């Protein structure tokens, strides 16, 4: 019989800071998936003998934006440190990071789960530099000796020295869902602060959960395993789930969990041992002698604090309050600043329309059009004002909902306004009851058998008759008026003694 365990999970997140230049030199930060290898490299980031690092102030500013948004305590003076290990992607043989005296400590991040809101404590936020990228090439050739290229590894230092922010949470999470929610909330926050590209496929945000389990109710921690370098939310959740199940199974069998670093194999859906505790590095951290303590000007920190935008969680609360949205809608609309801005612009452009209706249009029709075309909201040809105009036409009865959806699709593909499309295609809704009365009369006349069965008590046939009228009106009749007129004429028949 399986025991009940409580998972205890903390997260380390490495986020690339979207500065123009690298952390310790003037090299540009480039898209390493696109740029010519080693094209954005100088003696400093190549770690040549004799060079020295100089701190990129913009990276410090970006780091402070994040630390302040996470409500951290900012260290008036923090220290850089050398983290020593040998690897060919690390040209100096050490990474400049922060160890004792990090930039910021003791923050918090509010996450949203199916159980509601929850606060996860942030242990520390610190600055460091990224490593280069290795590409392993297998042996190749056509069999003739001269043609064989032995297996080898290529080194691209374009990424070496790119500023990274490491954000470490306390082990406050207890499920894959919470871990996913934390990662999404952090992703959203970094995007709001405009300090990260958000492009997880390209490694802009890399997540390393550490997971242990303990018998439910226990206060001591179990042995933890760390999973390296996850870069999708889905992968993160699946890896955490797998790891919880793996550790639970071990304990159920009376075995122990080994402390180790594990890797996630996405296509197999499993984690595997990468490095055991015995093989763990002694990084021999010591204060970086090439960089004096990072002393922060208080006024500058205050200035950065004052310049922070409205953060996702505040905006979410405001949307619920001000626009009477559900928590779900508010979360969807505030996850990205662009979406929230778009929504608020549309609301402002249509004061006569209930904000909830606008939320439905954006979360429903507009998102589905964006998904189908793979476009982002920034690329969307329909402006908030144009969308608002369309929605107003629907809510005011000028066109019906079905036509509205057709018109939106047309707006999306042609970039034309709703008015123009309606006019050119003659889509305006028929609300004139005399015209509709004529159409109803015609349909009843043409379908005497159905009318007879209705009168005999099969009232369900009314829906079919309604469809016939709408069809005759090419979908443009106001359905409410059609319904009313149909009911009126059928009742008249009953009263007239049919």
């Amino acid at each position, binding site marked *: 019989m399986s025991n009940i365990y409580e998972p205890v999970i903390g997260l380390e997140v490495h986020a690339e800071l979207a500065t123009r230049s690298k952390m310790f030199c003037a090299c540009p930060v480039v898209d390493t998936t696109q740029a010519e290898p080693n094209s954005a490299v100088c003696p400093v980031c190549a770690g040549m003998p004799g060079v*020295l690092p100089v701190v990129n102030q913009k990276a410090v500013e970006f780091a402070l934006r994040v630390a302040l948004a996470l409500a951290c305590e900012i260290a008036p003076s923090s220290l850089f440190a050398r983290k020593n290990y040998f690897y060919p992607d690390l*040209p100096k043989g050490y990474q400049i990071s922060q160890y004792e005296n990090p930039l910021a400590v003791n923050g918090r991040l509010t996450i949203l789960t199916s159980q509601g809101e929850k606060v996860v404590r942030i242990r520390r936020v610190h600055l460091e530099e990224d490593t280069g990228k290795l590409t392993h090439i297998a042996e190749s050739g056509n069999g003739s000796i001269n043609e064989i290229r032995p297996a080898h590894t290529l080194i691209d230092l374009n990424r070496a020295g790119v500023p990274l922010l490491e954000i470490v949470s306390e082990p406050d999470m207890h499920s894959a869902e919470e871990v996913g929610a934390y990662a999404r909330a952090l992703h959203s926050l970094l995007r709001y602060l405009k300090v990260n590209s958000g492009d997880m496929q390209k490694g802009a945000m890399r997540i390393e959960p550490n997971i242990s389990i303990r018998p439910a109710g226990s206060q001591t921690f179990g042995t933890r395993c760390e999973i390296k370098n996850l870069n999708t939310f889905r992968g993160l959740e699946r890896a955490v789930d797998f790891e919880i199940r793996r550790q639970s199974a071990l304990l159920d069998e009376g075995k122990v969990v080994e402390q180790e670093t594990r890797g996630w194999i996405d296509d197999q859906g499993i984690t595997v041992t990468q490095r055991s505790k015995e093989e763990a590095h002694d990084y*021999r951290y010591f204060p970086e002698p090439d960089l004096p303590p990072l002393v922060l000007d208080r006024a500058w920190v205050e200035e950065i604090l004052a310049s922070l935008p409205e953060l996702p969680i505040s905006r979410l609360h405001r949307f619920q309050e001000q626009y009477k949205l559900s928590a779900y809608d508010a979360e969807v609309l505030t996850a990205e600043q662009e979406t929230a801005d778009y929504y608020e612009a549309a609301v402002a452009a249509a004061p006569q329309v209930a904000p909830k209706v606008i939320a439905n249009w954006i979360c429903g029709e507009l998102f589905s059009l964006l998904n189908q075309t793979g476009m982002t909201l920034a690329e969307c040809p329909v402006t908030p004002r144009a969308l608002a105009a369309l929605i107003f036409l629907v809510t005011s009865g000028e066109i019906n909902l079905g036509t509205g959806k057709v018109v939106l699709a047309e707006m999306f593909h042609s970039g034309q306004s709703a008015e123009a499309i309606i006019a050119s295609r003659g889509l305006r809704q028929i609300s004139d009851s005399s015209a509709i009365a004529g159409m109803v009369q015609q349909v009843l006349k043409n379908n005497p058998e159905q009318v007879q069965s209705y009168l005999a008590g099969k009232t369900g046939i009314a829906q079919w008759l309604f469809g016939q009228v709408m069809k005759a009106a090419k979908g443009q009749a106001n359905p409410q008026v059609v319904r009313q007129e149909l009911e009126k004429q059928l009742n008249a028949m009953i009263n007239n003694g049919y």
Partner: protein
Amino acid sequence: MNTITGLTLSQLVHGLRTGDFSSREAVQAYLEQIERLEPNLHAFISLAPEQALAQADIADSRLAAWRKSGENPIPPLLGVPMAIKDVLCVAGLRCTAGSRILENFIPPFSATAVERLLEAGIIVLGKTNTDEFAMGSSTENSGYWVTHNPWNLERVPGGSSGGSAAAVAADMAPAALGSDTGGSIRQPAAFCGISGIKPTYGRVSRYGLIAYGSSLDCVGAFARQVSDVALIYSLIAGHDERDATSMDYPKPQVNLNGKDLKGLRVGIPDEYFIAGIQAEVEASVREAIQVLQTLGAAVERVSLPHTEYALPVYYLIAPAEASANLARFDGIRYEPRSEAESMWGVFYRTRGERFGAEVKRRIMLGTYALSAGYYDAYYGQAQKVRTLIKTDFEQAFEKVDLIAAPVAPSTAFPIGRHSDDPLAMYLEDIFTLPANLAGVPGLVFPVGFDANGLPVGMQLMGPHFGEDILFKAGHAYQQVTDWHQRKPPLIDKAFT
């Protein structure tokens, strides 16, 4: 006969401006001197004769134009040849740091100190020999060859900047750059009978200096006389935005006028006149202090009570920093590489085969001192004691303007004497290490000779950014003495 190579730096500058000789003639004269003496001295690792002559021709045309118009100011050292220690990068010239692991590294950039001198018009003759990665006190640890002392070929020139010191002492260059992490400028200056400055830490940019102990490394200069050292110092000192540890402190204004030292308070530290130091060294230094007194200085005893801890503190901090600084030499980016089956094999073999014994010893010392479980007891503790040593100096400089002391316990020792005993070698630096740990400047100049005809040097240490006081005292001393004008007999012998 006063040949070009016999001139001081200032005389050389004067001769070039007046047109007594051309820069080409000067460069040629030094190259010939190098050719004559290098087989005995081995002061250089690399020479750059073609580049030097080409630069000399450019300098000559600028000098000629200047002489004709006389208007536009020209750089202060235009056309002056110099030697550079081979731990400082000069763009386009091989830089080995005295190591076989860096046999083929040609830096694409110049060290800031070198760049400032190039802007001042100097011409680089070549790169001088050094203990591997500046780790040593005799230049015997060079991965290339041993440099010999021009005063006695059986003796070491000191180290690690032994190549630069020997080159200046033997008139193979009028001045040279060096580096000083634990005494590597001051002790060779003393052993070779020339003048040298280790500036305040942070006064001269370290950019382009191949790092050994980053929190201790200082770039400095050698010349025959203090005034010339001061001139070079004034050109290389000053803030550099490429070195975050270089201080934003005004450019030095070195004013050497006069030899009146009235009002100068000179401290004599008890801890530097201890049993075991060579009697002639102590006698010469005490005589030199008397000379300072006759020039008006007041002398008093001071105490630097933590001096005895400087050696163990230094041999924890410097190797710890070195263990990280030298990690980049893994065979991946710099040739030569020792091939192996695996990545780790390349690391092990390249480093195992190409680092010398002393470098490996210090990497291991430093790695150990930083290891988990030992950090607090070793590196952490060393940093605390380092603060005490610094405080010693701060307290002393509340009482005195500068501190006078011997540079080393003895004059130049015989080649090979300490080759089996690293600890005895480390003890050579006991009087120079404290200034590095405290970050204070130190000036060395010759104050006599021992019975073997080997030069004795004296060291003046000043407060942070107190170089001007040191230069003033040293220059005053040299105006009333002539030790700095003595030359090794081998220079003259070379002509006969």
